[in-house]
């Protein structure tokens, strides 16, 4: 049980750490990062959002909004989740993804939980916030699948976003429940068989917000790393959507290596309010029926 708790906490803290570390170099190219930082591996804030060190962005904040709604409702309630996203949007967040903004606005205007399927919804915004739902459904496959897509469709309705959210969410669930990297690889290979465009070896080298680029960057560096730190550092130094690729690889690496493997120097820099809220949410999420 201890190990499972450590891995669950690791996955959620991993999102925040990856977000805060990656935010410094979001929208930068690898050569610009090398020029400015050599290898970027410290939480220093800055970046295009001019953040204070340890500050997280929309990736972690939307996760906390989703997690908060799950705990308050004692389980799944799609409207509660959508309302939590609205409350978050009205709180003047430091950044909001364009597709997330459009989806939340649609919900505000017409109260529909999903827009039409759209080519322009192929971003990584639905996957980036999945970790609290993973923790709320560790023992319930069916619930995870259904709820993962319902939360995704509030802002992103795109087949590739759907499949990536399901598969990487599955991987995190499996890792937290004690599965190893080998079983993870089996899930990844099944994805590549059905959707070859997600192939990540050799690594195509793009780390944009397009879900295919994001998944390739995350899975390549997750399977080629050998520690929490090496997975996250290699990922964020690819730049582009670095906070989001960092958050997602942080979820997987945290689920595999555990919270105890996250560098203390990074945890110490992280916004203390966010760390406290994550710890409280992990307790609340693991007590939900889907994880009993």
């Amino acid at each position, binding site marked *: 049980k201890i190990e499972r708790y450590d891995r669950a906490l690791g996955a959620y803290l991993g999102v925040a750490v990856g977000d805060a570390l990656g935010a410094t170099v979001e929208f930068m190219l690898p050569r610009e990062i090398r020029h400015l930082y050599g290898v970027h591996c410290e939480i220093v804030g800055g970046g295009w959002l001019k953040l204070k060190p340890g500050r997280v962005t929309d990736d972690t904040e939307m996760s906390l909004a989703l997690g908060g709604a799950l705990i308050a409702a004692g389980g799944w309630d799609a409207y509660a989740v959508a309302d939590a996203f609205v409350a978050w949007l009205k709180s003047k967040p430091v950044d909001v993804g364009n597709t997330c903004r459009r989806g939340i606005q649609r919900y*505000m205007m017409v109260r529909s939980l999903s827009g039409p399927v759209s080519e*322009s919804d192929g971003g990584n915004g639905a996957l980036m916030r999945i970790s609290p739902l993973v923790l709320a459904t560790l023992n319930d496959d069916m619930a995870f699948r259904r709820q993962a897509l319902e939360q995704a469709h509030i802002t992103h309705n795109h087949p590739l976003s759907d499949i990536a959210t399901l598969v990487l969410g599955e991987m995190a669930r499996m890792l937290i429940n004690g599965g190893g990297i080998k079983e993870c690889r089996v899930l990844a290979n099944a994805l590549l068989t059905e959707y070859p465009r997600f192939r990540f070896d050799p690594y195509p080298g793009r780390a944009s917000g397009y879900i295919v680029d994001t998944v390739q960057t995350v899975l390549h560096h997750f399977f080629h790393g050998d520690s929490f730190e090496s997975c996250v550092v290699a990922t964020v130094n690819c730049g582009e959507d670095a906070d989001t690729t960092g958050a997602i690889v942080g979820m997987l690496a945290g689920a595999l290596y555990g919270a105890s493997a996250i560098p203390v120097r990074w945890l110490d820099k992280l916004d203390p309010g966010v760390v406290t809220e994550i710890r409280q949410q992990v307790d609340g999420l693991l007590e939900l029926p889907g994880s009993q």
Partner: protein
Amino acid sequence: MKKIEAIIKPFKLEEVREGLSALGVSGLTVTEVKGFGRQKGHTELYRGAEYVVDFLPKAKIEVVVPTSLVEAAVDAIVKAAHTGKIGDGKIFVTTVEQVVRIRTGETGEAAI
């Protein structure tokens, strides 16, 4: 997609932005303009002599939104920009046929 042009009193800009951001609208463009209308200008002293400046400084806000959002956005602007005194301003709504986000090449509603 519609373009909303609102000509308002300059000191109301912050409030109007707040009203729009409560709808999740954060992108907008602002121009400093001069208004001539029912609200007359004022008298200024320049080198001791009085003369009438017959225009008034206004702020012009341009915001392009999906058609489904127009009504709510116009209401938010009216609520925020209203003082009840002459010169509060005007709102004009026109149709925009195409929008392009220059950074990504996205078009249509995905670009706003």
